[in-house]
């Protein structure tokens, strides 16, 4: 019976994918995408993750986990697996799986879907699961620590440095997404600003009025948020208030930089923690409502399955399907950052190591489904509207007429009236060139949610709700991330100057925070003034960085499998590692050396240098000094790519050395925590 049922599921997946692929011209229902996704996840979980759990790793329920061995009632606590699943999922889900697929939709929904599904089954979920397992068997130690003990001190330091630079780029690109969403939008800017006093009020409430009542303070905060969205409309329509909350991108960038600095040095209970409560619950709630919305409405996908832009000439990001689709989608298929979460708090709370399969592999499947929903939300828009929102002004001009003409000439018919109409419906002056993915997702979500609740009258409310939801949790990542980066900087430099590493002294705290903030602030500002939108440059850099971190984490998994003498099964980690090395190295080389100035940093620098020699100005530069700065930025970006390449190639070298040593050894060489109880009993076959 069971084999028959699984064969049926498999047939259903194939049929859904077939339906998605063959439709030419007419819209396909999102039902087929959802069916293909859920069916694939079910098969992957039931068969592949079980194979990894039982054959590859030999998970053993009798082996005592760190939570049991070191139970302290605080960090190390055996926790119910459903509760822990929620904790782990909330930690890995963020803006990445939402933004990446929206950008990738320029190639049509099919390429994105195929990579999201294959990527998660064979790479992303495998990475999360293996790292969680490896850390659980080693006292819940962190990724940097694990690399140090399994591969050596130098690779450990390299990995730590890599994590820091990746963090900086991540914060810059996320901040850029917020800037793009809030620029020239008084409604959006007002609601996001309103979250500051709301969070401070919650902080005071939870500290002095009713200590520790998270539920109460979050409920109050949520009601205040809804009121601020409602009042935001009044602000945007008021001649007096609207100009106060209408900001240019540059202004917003400096405000964000200042915010990141202040928020990460203030006492955490005042701003950081209450924002975290609000954004975490809002994130989970909104993800659930989007799922519910899709299941009620079953919208049609208006985007073609494969668009003409698979040739690499698309306006949203430059470069062809390989390697750039895999770089752009990032988090929903495989995300290096998850390796940090999987070696963070989760392994310290697992009561039974067989649960690493459900939590590590399972939570990543759910993250992939979030990415699938984002892809659906982007694909329910008219393609003309999608491209109007995601193309830079340099390509489509600044008016609905010019934009409609340009986009129609690409083969996506759209009228100026449609473009103005969509803007009016969501309560914005314009939707042109609202790049960065967040506004597109918000329009798509507003479309789906208003079809479920409230009709078109509620569309502008849902749009600003979606913008607020994204901005809120991105800002929470920015302030918490700046704080983490600060500690990493103090840790790294503290090795050379011990005084700098003192996290309780004010001077080093402020200095390290300033370094962190100016690091991501530099890239943010560079992105904001970029005439091609900035996302074009920064998102690929972030994608490369994130996927390279995944490559590093998976390399560790390969090494550990060899040291466990499980090389027979090492292919489960080698295959995704090899693929990530091929993708990221190709992408990094193309970003540096490609002849097309839209792709290659050096080509772009040459183009500007040639123009500067003839004393010509190219946008965005307005003076020759600005021309020089553009060229300088290109070299900075190219250098950063080169650093990433060096990092992963070095890791590859260390990995090969470690694998040869492991093969030469006759015994298991990996360093798991000894388990007295376990050693007394024969291992289960």
């Amino acid at each position, binding site marked *: 019976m069971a084999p028959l049922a699984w064969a049926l599921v498999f047939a259903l997946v194939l049929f859904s994918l077939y339906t998605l692929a063959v439709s030419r011209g007419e819209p396909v229902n999102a039902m087929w995408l959802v069916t293909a996704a859920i069916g694939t996840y079910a098969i992957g979980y039931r068969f592949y993750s079980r194979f990894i759990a039982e054959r590859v790793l030999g998970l053993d329920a009798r082996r005592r986990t760190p939570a049991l061995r070191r139970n302290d009632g*605080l960090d190390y606590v055996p926790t*119910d697996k459903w*509760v822990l699943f929620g904790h782990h999922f909330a930690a890995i889900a963020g803006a990445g799986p939402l933004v990446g697929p929206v950008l990738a939709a320029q190639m049509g929904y099919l390429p994105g879907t195929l990579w999201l599904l294959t990527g998660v089954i064979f790479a992303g979920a495998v990475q999360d699961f293996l790292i969680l397992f490896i850390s659980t068997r080693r006292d819940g130690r962190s990724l940097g620590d694990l690399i140090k003990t399994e591969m050596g001190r130098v690779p450990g330091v390299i990995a730590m440095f890599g994590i820091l630079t990746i963090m900086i780029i991540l914060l810059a690109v996320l901040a850029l997404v917020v800037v793009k969403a809030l620029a020239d939008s008084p409604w959006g800017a007002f609601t996001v600003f309103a979250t500051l006093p709301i969070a401070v009020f919650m902080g005071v409430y939870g500290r002095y009025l009713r200590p520790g009542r998270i539920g109460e303070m979050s409920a109050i905060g949520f009601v205040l948020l809804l009121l601020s969205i409602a009042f935001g409309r009044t602000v945007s329509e008021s001649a007096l208030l609207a100009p106060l909350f209408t900001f240019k991108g540059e202004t917003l960038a400096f405000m964000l930089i200042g915010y990141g600095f202040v928020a990460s040095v203030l006492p955490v*209970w005042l701003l950081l923690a209450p924002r975290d409560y609000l954004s975490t619950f809002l994130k989970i709630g909104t993800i659930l409502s989007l799922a519910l919305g899709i299941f009620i409405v079953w919208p049609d996908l208006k985007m073609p399955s494969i668009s003409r832009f698979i040739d690499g000439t698309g306006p949203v990001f430059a470069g062809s399907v390989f390697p750039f689709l895999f770089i752009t989608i990032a988090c929903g298929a495989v995300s290096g950052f998850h390796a940090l979460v999987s070696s963070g708090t989760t392994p310290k709370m697992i009561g039974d190591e067989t649960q690493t399969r459900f939590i590590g592999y399972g939570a990543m499947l759910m993250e992939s489904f979030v990415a699938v929903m984002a892809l659906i939300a982007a694909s329910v828009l008219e393609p003309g509207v999608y491209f109007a929102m995601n193309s830079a002004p340099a390509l489509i001009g600044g008016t609905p007429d010019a934009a409609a003409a340009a986009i129609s000439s690409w083969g996506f018919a759209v009228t100026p009236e449609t473009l103005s109409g969509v803007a009016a419906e969501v309560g914005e002056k314009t939707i042109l060139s609202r790049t960065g993915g967040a506004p597109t997702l918000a329009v798509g979500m507003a479309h789906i949610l208003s079809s479920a609740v409230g009709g078109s009258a509620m569309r502008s409310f849902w749009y600003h709700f979606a913008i607020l939801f994204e901005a809120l949790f991105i800002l929470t990542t920015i302030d918490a991330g700046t704080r*983490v980066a600060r500690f990493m900087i103090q840790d790294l430099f503290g090795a050379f100057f011990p005084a700098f590493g003192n996290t309780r002294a004010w001077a080093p705290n402020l200095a390290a925070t300033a370094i962190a903030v100016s690091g991501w602030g530099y890239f943010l500002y560079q992105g904001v003034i970029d005439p091609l939108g900035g996302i074009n440059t920064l998102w690929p850099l972030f994608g490369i960085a994130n996927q390279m971190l995944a490559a590093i984490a998976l390399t560790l998994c390969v090494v550990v499998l060899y040291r466990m003498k499980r090389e027979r099964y090492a292919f489960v980690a080698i295959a995704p590692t090899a693929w990530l090395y091929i993708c990221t190295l190709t992408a990094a080389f193309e970003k540096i050396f490609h002849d097309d100035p839209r792709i290659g940093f050096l080509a772009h620098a040459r183009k500007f240098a040639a123009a500067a020699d003839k004393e010509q100005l190219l946008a965005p530069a307005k003076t020759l000094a600005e021309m020089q700065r553009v060229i300088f930025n290109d070299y900075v970006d190219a250098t950063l790519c080169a650093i990433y390449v060096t990092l992963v190639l070095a890791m590859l070298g260390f990995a090969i050395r470690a694998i040869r040593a492991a093969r030469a050894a006759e015994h298991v060489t990996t360093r798991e925590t000894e388990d007295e109880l376990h050693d007394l009993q024969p291992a289960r076959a």
Partner: protein
Amino acid sequence: MNCTICSLPGLDLNRLARKLRDGAKLMVGQGDYDAYVAHIRARHESAPIMTRDEFFRARENARFGAGGERAFRCC
């Protein structure tokens, strides 16, 4: 509480509500206070026990404190 669904075998609404509450709290870094108290009572009888408020603050600081990898969240 006499409806048919609530009395279905295997469905324990109190347990479900407790799990949802615990799950929501752990998402923001707040562990189970009762489990902490039970642990200290059982293993370290003489050790002082934090009050509920102290526990809350200690967890909040731990989440965002030095070595703040606890607050790592993804992109």
